[in-house]
């Protein structure tokens, strides 16, 4: 007989195997998940849940697919969080002039409570990347926020009502497009392709007999 724990899912008591994740426990209990379930591997941020151990004052917010059940867990769901994303034209904005602060002025309302960082299931220093964004250090904000899965647990706990995931994403796009060094070999190859340099070569390959192709493949040089 496998070890069971008692949990309270959306207010209802269930006995579930102790090896399950919270997400699996919901399915074991009979919930048919539509909302609050995505990649089931910790990459998509769809499955944030809030819980406390029965009787404890402490609240925790986690990804339900990446967290094992515990005895006495009382679980509620955060299926959808209204993040306040601003729209912009990536071609027109620049990574200067306090652009992030202009689009997201609420970042300057941060009171330094660090609730965002404490809540992050990815272990990111969320408050720090918001601070980088305030100071216009977008590349630093980009790297510090890079592993964000957009679960928005941080935003759900923020007294300054910041939409952290959207701020991080803007910093990353600015970094990728404007701050990171340009790639010369890519630009060269793109120019060659647009010039039609590979058309003849590909046409020849497409019309090469199968036996010859096999021979070419099996004898091809492999870069060390």
């Amino acid at each position, binding site marked *: 007989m496998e070890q069971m724990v008692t949990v309270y899912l959306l207010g209802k008591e269930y006995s579930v195997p102790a090896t399950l994740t919270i997400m699996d426990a919901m399915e074991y209990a009979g919930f048919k998940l539509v909302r609050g379930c995505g*990649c089931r591997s910790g990459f998509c941020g769809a499955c944030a849940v809030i819980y406390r151990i029965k009787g404890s004052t402490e609240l925790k917010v986690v990804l339900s697919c990446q967290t*094992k059940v515990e005895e006495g867990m009382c679980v509620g769901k955060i299926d959808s969080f209204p993040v306040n994303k601003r729209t912009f034209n990536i071609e027109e904005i620049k990574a200067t002039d306090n652009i992030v602060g202009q689009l997201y002025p609420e970042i300057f309302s941060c009171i330094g409570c660090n609730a965002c960082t404490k809540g992050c299931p990815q272990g990111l220093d969320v408050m720090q990347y918001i601070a980088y964004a305030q100071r216009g250090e977008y590349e630093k904000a980009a790297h510090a926020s890079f*592993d964000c899965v957009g679960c928005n647990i941080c935003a759900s706990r923020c007294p300054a009502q910041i939409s952290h995931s959207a701020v991080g994403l803007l910093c990353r*796009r600015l970094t990728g497009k404007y701050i990171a060094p340009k790639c010369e070999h890519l630009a060269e190859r793109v120019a060659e392709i647009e010039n039609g340099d*590979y058309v003849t*070569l590909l046409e020849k390959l497409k019309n090469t007999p199968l036996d010859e192709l096999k021979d070419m493949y099996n004898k*091809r040089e492999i870069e060390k």
Partner: protein
Amino acid sequence: MSAFTDDMLKSMANVERTRAARLNSTPERFTAEEKEALLQAFHPDYSTKGFKVLEVGPNKGEKAPVELAQLLEGKSLLQGVAVDLERVDYDVDVLIIGGGGAGAAAAIEAKRAGADVMIVTKLRMGDANTMMAEGGIQGADKGNDSPAIHYLDALGGGHYKNVPELLEKLVTEGPLAIDWLDKLGVMFDKEADGTMVTTHGGGTSRKRMHACADYTGAELMRVLRDEVQNCGVKILEFAPAIELLLDEAGKCAGAVLLDYDSNEHIVVRAKTVIMATGGAGRLHYQGFPTSNHYGATADGLVMAYRAGAPLIYEDAIQYHPTGVAYPAQIYGALVTEKVRSLGAQLVNSNGEAFMHPLETRDVSAASIIRECTARGNGVKALDGVALWLDTPMIEIIHGEGTIQKRLPGMLRMYKKFGIDLRKEPILIYPTLHYQNGGILIDANAETKISGLYVAGEAVGGIHGTNRLMGNSLLDIIVFGRIAGIKAAEKAKTVELGKLSLAHVDAFAKEMEAAGIASEVPSPKLLPVYTHGRNAR
């Protein structure tokens, strides 16, 4: 206390004992003959079990996985249901079904081309296999590489069955796709001078795997979704398409959706439709676990098939060699191929490296299955057997801190369940990963049905019968863009007739004539999991 069992730790000691010697010796690659023999004997695609011959539809007479066949020959969710097609809820130029990477890329291009674009999706925008792709995206953009070399790599890896015109598009437009993403602001791993950091994948002859740490797909998807939102594409979430609509002339003309919240039907009329519904891992072919997204249930294949679009290589499934075999909480999840690109070897219970770590995926999976079954060199893990992936080698080869920098996602996933893969090797076994086949398209991404385009994993033919790592993130961008551009262009001249579901009735009649009576609701939309609970 270790998260591994005592028996596992005993076997792990063998891995540690042989590590120093293995660092200096990589097993030889298999010959073409060895590969063929391995696949025949051990790859699930070559098994006689698990497949069924299709009895109706455009691919009648061909075999397909049983679970897919049951849906292709299943019962339409609209069979016997009256839907008022005169009451059109949305009327758009381009309808995109699916909110993953391919759908997003298509939407951006269609919108830029001036079309009125709508994305409908079963779950949230961005909930897709794209988000979970870890390792990288190929693109022949370096001096020692070329689209022609990329072509040959993908062709050999695909068993020479790739549709030449599609493969040509993939490799030629590959660098353009990387450039397109770069300009949207995707943060590729680069050297200080801007040179792309690239590695090998299984079966590549040049290091052309671009990455964004091991969040490559997530980074692409976040940026694409953001851009879709920026450019004003209409998005309808939690509203899966359940049937395509044709017009009287047989042109694709929209879709009927199911609103998950109201349980009501929604009619969308569209001048052109792009199917971008992704893969099928959640059908769990042959009982395999899967690395796929919750929504990967082949819906697009089912809808298109019923409307008369032929499939290609519907029997070619990719089992990723390294799925998580332990612990239980992440069973079947993906361990990116990049772990092997960075030098980790596959090691059996005796501590022996039994194969070159970067064979193509089908060959690698078959070799792992052989080691665990015929050769009996597996390690008992949960209900099955598994092998070691010697991750600590990475830090020895590339220096301390490499895993934190290049594989942060893997490190975090295992850490949550008490395993530090920098210090301990991990247990893996093949997991259902990718649908090599799918709906047949031409080089314009259009199917046999006028006005129906397909992009992403729902497409078949690009990769032959075995896709190489990094060619899927590439194809969603290349063919997503093509589909978006072509669908928007065609929408300018299309004149639609009356909306019709007659093809659904016709398919049902064909089934009846073939003597098939099915009560399997189709498309499946979502899997049902109970984790061992008895049926209520």
